[in-house]
């Protein structure tokens, strides 16, 4: 460990948590803020308002373009968490006359788990699937859980901790064939993996901008119009966003999100190929340390995420010893607690293995040199901590 003051530059490998805003995105956002820019209320009918509205609708097209959707199917929200809440509570409550059985997985993000828990408290019956297919929910597993009164299934595209990828097309086809609405949290996959909401038969899909070099505080929910997906709003007010998400539209955030999505679409394939290669270098380097285990089989995971457990070291000490490297631990970071990750526990890891895990998530600025430095530092820290440990816990 070095003192933080002596650290020249932090190597950031936490892109799954958030990304920096692309400079072109910053520029377009600034254009929507000042007196000379498109700052007006997009709902106003005067010329400045219309100019702001054009920005918003252009962004809607850009977001839809990444998904194979129509612009009218994009509802802007404050982020993926709000989009998840709108989809799950909005669709669940709208269909309550059809049934009260809804399905999700124990390895979903809290933004999905908590709305499901809220509906459960309100009388819904929730099936909490434990992923069985290499850490993923298979179509066969979902099929077995579907019932005549099932109205909604929500499963994420890419798991935020392990990077494991659900076969969304197979799951979507199954839901559609049973007349069950299918919601997908795509916060980790948008702009990183190809998405076609029609081919994948998705009814609702949640997004955030800040995971793909857009600003924080803005996201979207895709709501299918064909077939028609109906849902109630979760808040009420001015009627914006087809009445589903009222409130003055944040033109600068929306314009930034739109450009971020458009930029991601243009470079997705090349980015992912490069990150896949870098992840292979990282994994190869970590394996050379010995006593490391990948949490989730790499062939089933997104190319930018690697989650690894280090045997014989306590996770907090390993993380503490990595000053100058920004990664996430296997503890629940949202609360700042040291509780072992429920996602890793759902993969069958015990508390110690979960707590000794790190998530590396690579991004546009990650270089081969970064990977080499990280492997070198980790190797030194793991060896040091293992040498410190008594034999009976190694």
């Amino acid at each position, binding site marked *: 460990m070095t003192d933080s003051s002596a650290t020249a530059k932090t190597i950031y490998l936490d892109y799954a948590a958030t990304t920096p805003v692309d400079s072109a995105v910053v520029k377009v956002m600034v254009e929507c803020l000042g007196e000379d820019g498109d700052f007006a209320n997009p709902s106003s009918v005067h010329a400045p308002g219309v100019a702001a509205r054009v920005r918003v609708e252009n962004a809607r097209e850009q977001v839809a373009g990444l998904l194979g959707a129509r612009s009218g199917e994009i509802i802007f929200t404050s982020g993926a968490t709000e989009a998840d809440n709108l989809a799950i509570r909005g669709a669940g409550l709208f269909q309550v006359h059809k049934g009260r059985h809804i399905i999700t997985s124990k390895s979903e993000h809290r933004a999905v788990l908590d709305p499901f828990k809220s509906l459960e408290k309100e009388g819904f019956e929730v099936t909490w699937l434990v992923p069985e297919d290499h850490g993923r929910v298979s179509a066969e597993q979902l099929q077995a859980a579907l019932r005549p009164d099932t109205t909604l299934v929500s499963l994420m595209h890419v798991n935020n901790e392990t990077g494991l990828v659900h076969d969304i097309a197979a799951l979507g086809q199954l839901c559609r064939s049973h007349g069950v609405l299918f919601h997908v949290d795509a916060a980790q996959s948008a702009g990183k993996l190809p998405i076609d909401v029609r081919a994948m038969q998705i009814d609702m899909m949640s997004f955030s901008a800040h995971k793909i070099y857009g600003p924080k505080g803005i996201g979207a929910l895709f709501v299918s119009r064909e077939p028609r997906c109906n849902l109630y709003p979760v808040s009420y007010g001015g009627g914006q966003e087809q009445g589903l998400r009222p409130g003055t539209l944040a033109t600068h955030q929306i314009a930034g999100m739109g450009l971020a999505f458009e930029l991601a679409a243009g470079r997705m394939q090349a980015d992912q190929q490069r990150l896949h290669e870098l992840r292979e270098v990282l994994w190869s380097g970590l394996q050379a340390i010995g006593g490391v285990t990948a949490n989730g089989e790499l062939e089933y995971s997104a190319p930018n995420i690697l989650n690894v457990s280090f045997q014989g070291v306590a996770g907090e*000490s390993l993380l503490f010893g990595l000053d100058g490297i920004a990664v996430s631990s296997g503890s629940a970071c949202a609360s700042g607690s040291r509780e072992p990750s429920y996602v890793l526990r759902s993969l069958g890891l015990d508390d110690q293995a979960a707590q000794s895990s790190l998530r590396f998530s690579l991004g546009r600025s990650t270089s081969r040199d970064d990977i080499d430095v990280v492997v070198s530092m980790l190797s030194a820290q793991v060896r040091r901590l293992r*040498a410190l440990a008594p034999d009976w816990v190694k």
Partner: protein
Amino acid sequence: MNAPAYAQLVRQHFSRPVGAGCFEPGVPGVVQGCAGSREQGLAVQFQCRLDGEKILEARFLAWGCPHSIAGASWLAERLAGMGLVEAARITGNEVSAALDVPADKLGSILILEDALGACLENARQRHYLTE
């Protein structure tokens, strides 16, 4: 989240621990004690090399959080040159106060205290400590 609030002394002892390791087998005057487990979040072994009732040097092995490793190092530094009777008066409270250990880590510090206690009990059994 790489850097939760750790006191400077924790950083120092974690990055450059005092007395890390163990004595070679056969070194005379060595007593030792262990406490904890992986399940408890800390496993620690203390060894003291004695000259009569005086601790010449202390060494430790520890698996646990930075506060635990730093605490073991702080203790090892403190114990060197100390009499066994004086060492027996050291409490976990002293360790936690010195290192500004947060409340949720106090259980680990008590395990350190147990390991030191086991080490001193070993000294008593081997008649280094007569009190």
